[in-house]
């Protein structure tokens, strides 16, 4: 930290000013002039929170994608299909059993199992042929997409959040301040989204802890750095691969339930979330969990902000961020050059 400030004094100053301005925008009540040109503060806060919660969802999808990519060098373009399968299965389980929470472990296991089968019977047969693995995953995504269209049809599904998560909750953020009466209105926001954000943060921290503090995490990190050496030192690397693939797939499945809860599911959502995770890992850096979190946050917020303040060009924002990252830091913000 000190080193950074000493090395780049002007950059540090800019960053500090920007962070301060951002905090002021979030925490302080807006003066009327600002509200006149930018719209009400509530809109800004809603867009920001919407972006952060969307980023949480993107993170859940992209974390598995980036982990699989980092360890096995497989660009699994069927990852979006796993998301959609998870969402549909979650819908079936939640409506059949009436329990939203039960859907999570079941979907994690079932979709994780699909991932295990894919890795065991298809991808492991063509190890090292990266292009072929990618093509196979494209073929799988076409087949999955059509099977799901066959079974669940073209209409959209959404899962109802359970009773204790419905309705709004009050956040300690000022949404409006009446100078005359001194009354403060706090921001109200759907509680299910806040809880999903918290869950994503918990999952993210747990993944980070597993990766950095356990024996399994050591194996995975060693595999990311040099899988030949890891295999040569006697580790049964296929088991590590299977674990990671199953876990990543299961995570995508869980993200499917969450996606179905706060948005909806329909054919085509698989491509949307595949693309989101592609952009997230390109921006954040491939193979890095922290990078995926950062990328998901940036892309989610940019998408929602663009959606609110410049609806026509919201896609272009996302794309421009990606292009800028590619142009100046092709390995991604937190990616490592190999």
């Amino acid at each position: 930290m000190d080193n950074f400030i000493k090395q780049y004094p002007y950059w540090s100053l800019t960053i500090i000013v920007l962070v301060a301005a951002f905090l002021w925008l979030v925490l302080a009540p807006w003066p009327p002039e600002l509200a006149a040109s930018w719209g009400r503060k509530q809109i800004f806060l809603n867009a920001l929170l919407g972006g952060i919660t969307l980023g949480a969802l993107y993170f859940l999808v992209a974390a598995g994608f980036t982990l699989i990519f980092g360890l096995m060098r497989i660009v699994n373009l069927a990852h979006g299909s796993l998301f959609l399968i998870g969402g549909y299965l979650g819908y079936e389980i939640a409506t059949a059993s009436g329990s939203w929470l039960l859907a999570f472990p079941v979907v994690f296991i079932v979709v994780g199992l699909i991932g295990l089968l894919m890795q065991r019977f298809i991808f492991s047969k063509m190890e090292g042929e990266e292009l072929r693995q990618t093509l196979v995953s494209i073929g799988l995504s076409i087949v999955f997409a059509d099977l799901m269209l066959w079974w669940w049809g073209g209409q959209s599904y959404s899962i109802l959040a359970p009773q204790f998560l419905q309705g709004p909750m009050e956040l300690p953020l000022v949404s409006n301040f009446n100078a005359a009466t001194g009354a403060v209105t706090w921001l109200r926001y759907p509680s299910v989204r806040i809880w999903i954000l918290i869950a994503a943060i918990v999952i993210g921290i747990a993944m980070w802890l597993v990766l950095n503090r356990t024996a399994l995490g050591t194996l995975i990190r060693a595999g990311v750095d040099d899988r030949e050496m890891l295999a040569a030192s006697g580790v049964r690397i296929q088991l590590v691969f299977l674990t990671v693939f199953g876990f990543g797939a299961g995570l995508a499945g869980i993200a499917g339930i969450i996606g179905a809860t706060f948005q909806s599911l329909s054919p085509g959502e698989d491509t949307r979330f595949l693309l989101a995770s592609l952009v997230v890992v390109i921006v954040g850096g491939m193979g890095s969990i922290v990078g995926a979190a950062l990328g998901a946050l940036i892309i989610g917020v940019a998408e929602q902000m663009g959606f609110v303040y410049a609806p026509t060009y919201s896609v272009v924002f996302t794309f421009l961020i990606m292009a800028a990252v590619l142009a100046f830091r092709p390995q991604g913000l937190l990616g490592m050059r190999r």
Partner: protein
Amino acid sequence: MSVADHIPRLADRAEQRMWFERIPTRWWVVGLILLFLPVVANNFWLFQVMGWTFILGMIGLSLMFLAGYGGMVSLLQMSIAGMAGYMVAILGPSGVLNVSLGLSWWIVLPAAFLIAALFATIAGALAVRTEGIYTIMITLAIAAAFFYFTRQNYSVFNGYSGFNLVLPPQLFGVNWRDPVAFYYLTLASATLCYFAVVYIERSPFGLALQGVRDNPRRMAALGFHVTAHRVAAYALASIFASAGGILLVWQNAQIAPGTIGISSAIDILVVAVVGGMRRPLGPFIGAFIYVLLQVFSADILGFFGFSVDRFKLIIGIGFLAIVLFSPDGVLGLWDRWRAQLAARNAATTGDGA
């Protein structure tokens, strides 16, 4: 089979023969069939099946050029074709009068090729910042961004509905959308593109590009500008894609974001992979198979008692089978079959190959 047997023995005499004598008989047969197809085939076959095959083949050819010679699997080619098609619709006459400029064809066509080439160069320059499988991810993301952009932008791309009534110019008094005329137009364009790729493959640039594919570091050490070669390959490939895109707009008489969607981009990859990405002939064979499946899927599926909507399932499973069992596509299967046959012949006649 007899032709194949004689090729090695005739090889040393080949130099003394005229150039047209050196073309194998099979090529003559294919060429004659294609030239005289309008005599026997009906309009549906000429316009829908063959016209579409040549168009898809050309767009697939641009992917094959990048992937086969440059080692860059780009999912961008459909977007480039779409950009050229959109330019024809925007600059030339169309049914959307408040957007289309209605310029005449000799401005529109060069401008469409140029703008598409510019788009390809910029996107290619971004894509070549990374290597290998990353290229697929980045080009897919760019293609998706372009798709969503055309769908949301109304001032230039006319948003969701796109452009209709985009007709080819009445050049030389011929209605180029007439099935026979359109067939010959697509056939001529496809043939031109095919031979252009065959020529580039053997040109110094093509050889350097293949060198870059096989070993970029060595080529860089030899003094070749690796990035420039790759970006130039994107620009060159855009010509074939643009030709296909413009013909596609003329064939459908319309273009909309759906034409350049993500599934279309993946269809081009399917076409190129199924045909085989090693040789320029591959995409055309892949396109023919794809079009036949698409056009006759209703009959095939009905025969097996499935609903017509399962066309994508057939395509997906076929694609998976090809990738799993014959990574070189149908042409790879053909080569392997020929090699087996030759080996068996050599074994029975005792003729060392």
